[in-house]
């Protein structure tokens, strides 16, 4: 199936989303957010893949060699840095929540309940 890698990305994203909704622990929830983000790496790299293509580094390959798309690869790099920043920030927010509620269970943080 030629679109399987894209469907894989969609599946990873939905799996992460399920984790976020069903989470009973904020640390677990942050990990689920990272799972969602990793779906974007799969999607980006899959979009840029070229059959028979190699890494777009021309240090030791002829310039005529087929290479995969360098633009999506650098976007993935950007994506990773954003993921780290988001995780670090969310984890420190989780610590703050623990300070106020003595619990990491989002179900027990009732202040924001609608």
């Amino acid at each position, binding site marked *: 199936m030629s679109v399987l890698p894209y469907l894989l990305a969609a599946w990873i994203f939905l799996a992460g989303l399920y984790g976020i909704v069903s989470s009973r622990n904020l640390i677990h929830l942050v990990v689920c957010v990272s799972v969602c983000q990793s779906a974007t790496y799969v999607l980006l790299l899959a979009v840029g893949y070229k059959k028979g293509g190699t890494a*777009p580094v021309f240090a030791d390959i002829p310039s005529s060699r087929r290479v995969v798309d360098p633009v999506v690869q650098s976007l993935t790099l*950007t994506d990773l840095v954003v993921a780290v920043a988001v995780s670090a920030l969310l984890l*420190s927010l989780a610590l703050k929540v623990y300070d106020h509620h003595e619990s990491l269970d989002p179900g027990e943080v009732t202040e924001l309940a609608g």
Partner: protein
Amino acid sequence: MSTRIRFVIFALGALGLGALLVHGVVDLPSFGNYPGPYGDLIAKLAPKERHMVNTVTAVVFDYRGFDTMGEELLLFGAASAVALLLRERREEDVHGVDDRVTSPAVRGVGALAAVMLLVIGLNVVSHGFITPGGGFQGGVILASAFAVVFLTVEYRAYREIATTSFGEPVEAFGAGAYVGLGLVALGFGLSFLQNFMELGIPGRLSSGGSAIFVNFSSALAVFGGFLVIFSEYIEENMRERHQ
């Protein structure tokens, strides 16, 4: 809202989103039949036009250098926010914590690994335009050398080499230098972050022109940013162990 209703709502939403995602990807060009012209163009141009053989790094620090600056500042903001949030919880620095790792084997291997990580980190940073790597990856490796010291040697040794007065200025200098390099280009009458130096011979360590310095400044910013984040969490961990 009961858990059950929540799951029903989620299932409906996930089904809808899943259907949309599937609908969105089935018409994409099949895997491996890459259609985009930009990547091909960059792969062809970067080695000739910018003398950078690693085209991924060429995109990050040259063609999309301005976007990378935004990303740099995003990391800067996140590290600052972590420091702000966590420091507010702590009244004072932790003193008198004894968490010496007692196994000499672990200490020895840890110290060795830290030195090796520093060397590998510098190697990855400086060869950014030649081999896979660059400022971001190298900066993270450099910072992980410090984390290894904490994990395998002791907290006090970590505090001595990674004081807050070390990570913060490094990060700030890196982020500032990145912006500064853009302004220098403006001063030469060029566009923001445009190359203003000799491009060098492709494949050599000195190739890439002024983007080399952009690469190094981002390495410093990432290294410093990670150190700040590590330090805050480690400090937090020690405080809890202390009590």
